[in-house]
C-alpha cells in the first residue's frame, strides 16, 4: 500500500479534476518548475475546488484560498509578511483562472503590479468560467459557444475577442510577462523559473484546455492546445522589461480551422465565420512577426 504516491510531486493525485483536465496539468508543471519554497494564494475556481474539499487537500506546499477576485491582493499580503518577518527564499505565488484574473480579478492584479509587489502571478486560461458551468469570461475567444453566449436564432456565440491580458500587465511596467501552453511544458516551466527568479511582479499566462468546456475528448487536451500554438491562435512569447521575444514560431503556420474543428464549442461556425477568425489570427501573427 503506497503511503505517499508520487512523493516527488508537490500535488498529490486523488483530486477531483476531470479526466484529461488541462488546468490541473498546468498546476503540476507550476510546482515542478517552482519547487517547495512557495506560498500559493489561489482564487476560487476549478483548481481550488477540486483540490481542497475539506478535510482533504492535494497540496503539498503551503496554500491559501480566500475569494474569487483577490488572489493577487492576498499574494501581495503574503509577500509583505515574508518581507516584514525577514523570511528569505520563499516565493509568493498567486494562481487564478481567466475569470479570476481578467474580469473580477483585474483590479487586484493591477494593484499588485503597479505597486511592484514581489509576486509571481499565474493565470490558467481555459477561456471561460468553467467551475460554475462554462459561462463566458473576458478571455472567451471570438465565436465560442458558452452557456451565456449560446448559439441562438438571433445571437451566435461570443462576439468579443480575448482581452489582451499580457499586454495590459506589460503596460503596467511589469518586469516579466509571458504566455505559455500546457502542450509546451519545457517552455512553460522555463518561463516560470525565469519569472520566479525576478524580485517584483511577474506574470505568466498559460492556455490550458477544459475538456467539457471546450467540448473535446478527454484524450485531446494536449493535441488541441498544441494546435492553438501551431495555428498562431495562441502565441508563445515573453516581454522582458518591455522587450518582446517570441519563444516559438510555428514552422509552417496551419490554418486556424484545424484548431477550431477539433472543438465542439466552435462546431456551429460557418465558413465565413472561420474566415473572419483566420483574419484575426493573421493580424495577430503579423503583430508578433510570425508568418
Amino acid at each position, binding site marked *: 500500500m503506497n503511503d505517499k504516491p508520487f512523493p516527488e510531486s508537490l500535488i498529490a493525485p486523488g483530486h477531483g479534476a476531470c479526466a484529461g483536465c*488541462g488546468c*490541473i496539468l498546468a498546476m503540476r508543471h507550476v510546482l515542478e518548475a517552482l519547487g517547495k519554497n512557495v506560498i500559493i494564494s489561489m482564487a476560487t475556481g476549478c483548481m481550488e475546488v477540486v483540490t481542497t474539499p*475539506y478535510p*482533504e487537500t492535494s497540496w503539498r506546499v503551503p496554500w491559501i484560498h480566500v475569494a474569487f477576485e483577490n488572489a493577487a491582493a492576498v499574494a501581495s499580503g503574503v509577500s509583505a509578511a515574508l518581507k516584514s518577518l525577514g523570511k528569505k527564499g520563499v516565493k509568493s505565488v498567486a494562481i487564478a483562472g481567466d475569470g479570476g484574473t481578467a474580469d473580477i480579478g483585474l483590479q487586484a492584479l493591477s494593484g499588485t503590479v503597479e505597486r511592484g509587489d514581489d509576486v509571481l502571478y499565474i493565470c490558467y486560461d481555459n477561456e471561460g468560467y468553467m467551475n460554475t458551468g462554462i459561462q463566458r469570461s473576458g478571455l472567451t475567444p471570438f465565436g465560442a459557444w458558452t452557456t451565456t453566449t449560446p448559439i441562438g436564432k438571433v445571437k451566435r456565440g461570443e462576439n468579443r475577442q480575448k482581452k489582451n491580458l499580457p499586454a495590459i500587465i506589460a503596460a503596467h511596467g511589469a518586469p516579466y510577462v509571458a504566455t505559455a501552453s500546457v502542450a509546451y511544458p519545457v517552455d512553460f516551466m522555463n518561463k516560470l523559473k525565469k519569472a520566479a527568479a525576478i524580485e517584483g511582479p511577474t506574470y505568466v499566462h498559460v492556455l490550458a484546455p477544459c475538456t467539457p468546456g471546450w467540448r473535446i475528448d478527454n484524450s485531446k487536451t494536449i493535441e488541441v492546445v498544441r494546435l492553438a500554438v501551431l495555428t498562431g491562435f495562441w502565441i508563445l512569447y515573453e516581454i522582458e522589461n518591455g522587450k518582446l521575444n517570441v519563444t516559438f514560431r510555428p514552422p509552417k503556420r496551419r490554418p486556424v480551422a484545424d484548431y477550431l474543428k477539433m472543438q465542439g464549442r466552435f462546431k456551429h461556425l460557418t465558413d465565413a465565420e472561420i474566415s473572419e477568425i483566420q483574419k484575426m489570427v493573421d493580424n495577430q501573427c503579423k503583430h508578433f512577426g510570425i508568418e
Partner: protein
Amino acid sequence: MKLTAGAVIVEPGNAAKNKTGSWRAFRPIIDVEKCTGCGLCSIYCPEPAIHKGKPAKVDYDYCKGCGICANECPFHAITMVPEGKR
C-alpha cells in the same frame, strides 16, 4: 476526526486517500517493447498517475483513463482498452 479552527488542513496531500482509479472507463496498457522511456506520458498526465521509466508504469489506483498518454506517446506504445477487459 478533529476539526481545526478555520478548517485548516494540516496533512499535506492527504487527498491521496481517494483512489480515483475507480473513475476509469478505459485503462492504458503499456507495450514494454515499444516504450523507450522518454517520459512524455508522465509529463502530460494530469493526475499524476504514470511514472516515467523504461517501461513507463501506470499507477492504476489513480489513473482516470483520460487517454492523453496514449494520444501523445510518440512511439504508440500505449493503448486504451475498455476497463474490465484484459
